[in-house]
């Protein structure tokens, strides 16, 4: 296995749906990544196009505008984890020696497409069961019963992530929000208010993944390199119905990625995490083992996961704050991690960040985790 680096990153701001064509969003992000890495488009040996909602065969009509290339295009749809899955594939492709430079572009505009489970009759009694907000509102309820987590605990996640998002020009969040505002906001389902549910909008994010050889050849060589130390992409095995699949997947995937990286969760300085609903942040942090048993909500209240705390969690604002345009989301997480590990995150910089972890869950469920480290290449 060869060393693998993130050579360039770029993204658009996430926003509510606009009239901007998807190709314009995608090209903006990818051109930014190529400029950032200082590599020409013609050096890219494979492009993964991560998208879940926009349409069929969206890659070539967009990429054609970067100039003629016959390099293969592979579309990746893995629900919310589409972008993360594409990065995992790019990582393996470069690590194996098959390619020196691979591009990942996540782009989406929200539309309604049927999800697999809804096409299978007899699998469910209630259409509501397929609505993620109800699944996660029930998850919040269960954690409340089992761990004593309160509505305030969930609201504090929203306050932190909308606060971080307010420092991020790429975020969809309208701005910072106080604990009182979250608590006074009407509950949509169970304990979850709109501040505790991510907005799904549009956007694009791109990363270039390459070998040490590709780093040497890039004109962006002056930029601090970020190495991908390890990754894990898994799908849901049979899980006993007394357990929550997304939590079990997170536990397994984090262990696998950290093991490949040769790092412990306690080495991690910055995490971008799948916080589509506020309860998920606490549940997944607990599953990753970042806190002593039963302490995660207390650690969160003590500020351990704030920027400047022991491990900054979702300094970008996360899905709650930066937004969740689906295809790009996992790629945008890596843009943030790389920016943090380069020390270029400005007002939302986690001091001394050296090791980063990105985590996404996708409907199904699937889970993808990556571990990164600032490296001298």
């Amino acid at each position: 296995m060869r060393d693998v680096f993130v050579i360039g990153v770029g993204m658009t701001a996430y926003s509510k749906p606009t009239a901007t064509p998807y190709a314009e969003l995608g090209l903006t992000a990818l051109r930014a990544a190529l400029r950032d890495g200082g590599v020409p488009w013609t050096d890219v040996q494979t492009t993964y196009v991560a998208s879940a909602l926009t349409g069929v065969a969206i890659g070539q009509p967009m990429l054609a505008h970067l100039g003629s290339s016959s390099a293969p295009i592979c579309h990746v749809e893995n629900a919310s984890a589409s972008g993360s899955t594409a990065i995992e594939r790019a990582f393996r492709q470069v690590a194996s020696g098959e390619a020196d430079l691979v591009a990942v572009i996540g782009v989406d505009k929200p539309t309604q497409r049927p999800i697999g489970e809804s096409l299978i009759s007899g699998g469910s009694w209630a259409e509501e069961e397929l609505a993620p907000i109800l699944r996660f509102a029930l998850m919040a309820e269960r954690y409340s019963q089992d761990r004593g987590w309160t509505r305030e605990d969930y609201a504090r996640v929203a306050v932190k992530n909308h606060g971080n998002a307010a420092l991020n020009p790429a975020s969809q969040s309208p701005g910072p929000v106080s604990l009182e505002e979250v608590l006074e906001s009407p509950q949509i389902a169970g304990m979850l208010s709109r501040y505790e549910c991510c907005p799904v909008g549009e956007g694009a994010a791109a990363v270039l993944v390459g070998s040490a050889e590709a780093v040497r050849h890039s004109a962006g060589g002056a930029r601090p390199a970020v190495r991908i130390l390890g990754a894990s992409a898994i799908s849901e095995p049979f899980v006993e119905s007394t357990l929550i699949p997304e939590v079990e997947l997170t536990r397994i995937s984090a262990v696998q990625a950290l093991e490949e990286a040769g790092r412990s969760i306690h080495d991690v300085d910055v995490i971008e995490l799948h916080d589509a609903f506020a309860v998920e942040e606490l549940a997944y942090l607990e599953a990753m083992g970042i806190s002593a048993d039963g302490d995660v909500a207390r650690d969160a209240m003590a500020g351990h996961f704030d920027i400047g705390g022991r491990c900054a969690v979702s300094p970008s604002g996360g899905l709650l704050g930066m937004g969740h345009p689906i295809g790009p989301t996992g790629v945008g997480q890596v843009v943030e991690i790389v920016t943090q590990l380069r020390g270029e995150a400005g007002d939302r910089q986690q001091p001394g960040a050296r090791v980063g972890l990105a985590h996404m869950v996708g409907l199904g469920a699937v889970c993808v985790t990556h571990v990164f480290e600032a490296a001298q290449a």
Partner: protein
Amino acid sequence: MNEATTPRHTLRVTMSRCPNDGELAVPADTLGCRRCGNEPSHLETMTVDARGLAEAVITVNRPIGGHEAPYRFGEIRLDAGPMVRALCSPAVSAGTRVVGIELDESILFEIEEAVVDA
């Protein structure tokens, strides 16, 4: 719902059982065992009472799924074993014994005492 005049009976539902590993599913699995992959033609089916314990219940304040809001929605551990997610009556909360009754060709879980044959 016309609670006063309509006699309401505990719904019976179809459950599948895999003879290989004993895995139970409600609604019955029609595509193959999710634990061992046993083919659907090998799965046994039986009917069981839609009766159990509400483990987690939420109030939904938006018309998600086409239901008039607010409504209650919960995770029910059936006495037969499987966990199901379904609509619940306003009286149902975590820890309540419940039975499923028919509602508009779907199912609603009601507190046990409110159902005549419970």
